[in-house]
């Protein structure tokens, strides 16, 4: 596998043709390394890489590259997330080099939630470049060993480049084109927004497959198991670009007291079974929000364990 772009475990698993599984871990609101370790300990050996979120929902947390470095020291492969909200092109390039120097080999390029959502809504937003241009920047640094200004990089960062796709944001007809652009810009893999509306997602994937996008990048389907009816209602109403069908909320309600979480897990497992068969899907991105300890069980029950070892 000498043609690997980064040599990350995630890249090796995907290139070997295995159905990948990635997890997610939000860094702590503080420098609590013990808490961080506890959270990702549930994912060790259970997923191929763990996304490390970057001040998600614009709430300040331990920096994503530092939390990624802690993961590496503890034998877990991170997928370092970087948003365009907080850094200009100087800070982006230096953090990419810094993350690579710490052993980071996967990177997810995102626009980032606007700061009005978070706990510092007074902040100046940066958005010097956008997520499309960030993907292109990481590719340039890796493949051409050049900074954005065309100066040479002394040891380029060999990252496996990821991007997000939200098939449920509007306008729906344009979403697949935006995905195509991200892949053309340099994305090696795609992680989608949490999927609940399966019908809409099937339609989206059909368009993606018809355009041959699945042959140009690995597409991982995003899943967040619902823990409660309240969570489902909150996501349906208050999270922009999230599509939670009424039928799912009804199903969760129908599960009865004390059984909603299990119903949520059951729905996630059913989704995974369908995605395993769905054309164009190369793996699952399982975002068990503040529910990391549930990931081993979901992976086990979905037949995704043990994870493949690829040298």
């Amino acid at each position, binding site marked *: 596998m000498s043609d690997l772009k980064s040599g990350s475990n995630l890249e090796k698993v995907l290139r070997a043709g295995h159905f990948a599984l990635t997890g997610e871990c939000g860094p702590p609101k503080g420098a609590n390394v013990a808490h961080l370790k506890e959270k990702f300990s549930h994912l060790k050996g259970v997923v191929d890489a763990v996304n490390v979120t970057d001040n998600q929902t614009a709430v300040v947390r331990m920096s994503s590259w530092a939390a990624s470095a802690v993961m590496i020291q503890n034998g877990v492969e991170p997928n370092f997330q970087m948003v365009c909200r907080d850094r200009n092109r100087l800070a982006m390039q230096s953090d990419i080099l810094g993350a690579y120097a710490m052993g980071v080999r996967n990177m997810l390029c995102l626009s980032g939630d*606007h700061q009005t959502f978070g706990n510092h809504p007074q902040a100046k937003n940066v*958005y010097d470049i*956008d997520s499309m241009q960030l993907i292109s920047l990481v590719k340039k640094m890796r493949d051409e060993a050049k900074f954005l200004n065309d100066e040479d990089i002394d040891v380029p960062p060999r990252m496996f480049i990821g991007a997000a796709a939200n098939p449920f*944001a*509007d306008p729906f007809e344009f979403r697949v*084109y935006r995905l195509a*652009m991200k892949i053309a*810009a340099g994305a090696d893999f795609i992680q989608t*927004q949490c999927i609940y509306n399966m019908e809409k997602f099937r339609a989206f994937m059909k368009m993606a497959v018809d355009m041959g996008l699945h042959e140009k990048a690995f597409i991982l389907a995003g899943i967040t198991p619902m823990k409660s009816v309240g969570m489902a209602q909150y996501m349906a109403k208050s999270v922009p*670009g999230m599509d939670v069908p009424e039928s799912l909320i009804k199903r969760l309600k129908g599960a009865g007291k004390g059984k909603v979480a299990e119903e949520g897990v059951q729905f996630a497992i059913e989704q995974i079974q369908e995605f395993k068969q769905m054309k164009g899907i190369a793996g699952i991105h399982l975002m068990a929000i503040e529910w990391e300890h549930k990931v081993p069980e979901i992976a086990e029950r979905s037949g995704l364990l043990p994870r493949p070892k690829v040298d």
Partner: protein
Amino acid sequence: MIIADRKPLGELLEMVKECNKILILGCKGCVTVCNVGGTKEVGVLASILKIARKKEGRPIEVEEKTIERQCDPEYIAQVKDMVGQYDAVISMACGVGPQFLSEAYPDQRFFPAVNTTSFGGAVSHGIWAERCAGCGTCLIHHFDGLCPIARCSKSLLHGPCGGSASGKCEISKEVDCIWDMIVKKKMEKGRLQDLTKMKPNKDWRTARDGGPRKSVREELVQ
């Protein structure tokens, strides 16, 4: 035009709390058009300040004047004989006004009465909205007459982001997603392929990021 909103009364009263005699100076430019700093608004503010101070038992003397523009030395010169007699002059022009006045009359104190917000226009009666961010390199022709720099909350050149829902921006249901509008217009006009091309990274030097800006028309410079 330049859009502004009047500062809250409490802030203005705090500004003039040491003053016994002030001048409120309006501007017949943009702030008159957006109904915030013209002759009428000068009169209203004068009355409000006088009433508020009278209530406090510390009456204030307020004079009123409105000039053509506060962004031009020629008109600034018109108040030459007035300035100097007041504890403060409250400018109701955009942020340019109190600065041009301060530069012209260094011995007089000038305070701003408005918060200057944006470059925009009237979208309906009594409502003005931002249309231009003054970035110094106009790209509107690439986006069918719609500006994502000023009107996308993230100034994305390759939108819409994942937070666009039902034509609204993720920050508020009150804010239209300009990228939704751009995409729909491109689709309608059969020009969607324009959006699938990668745009170069923006050179922000022409915006405020490059430092204070100046425009020079060589043919006019003496």
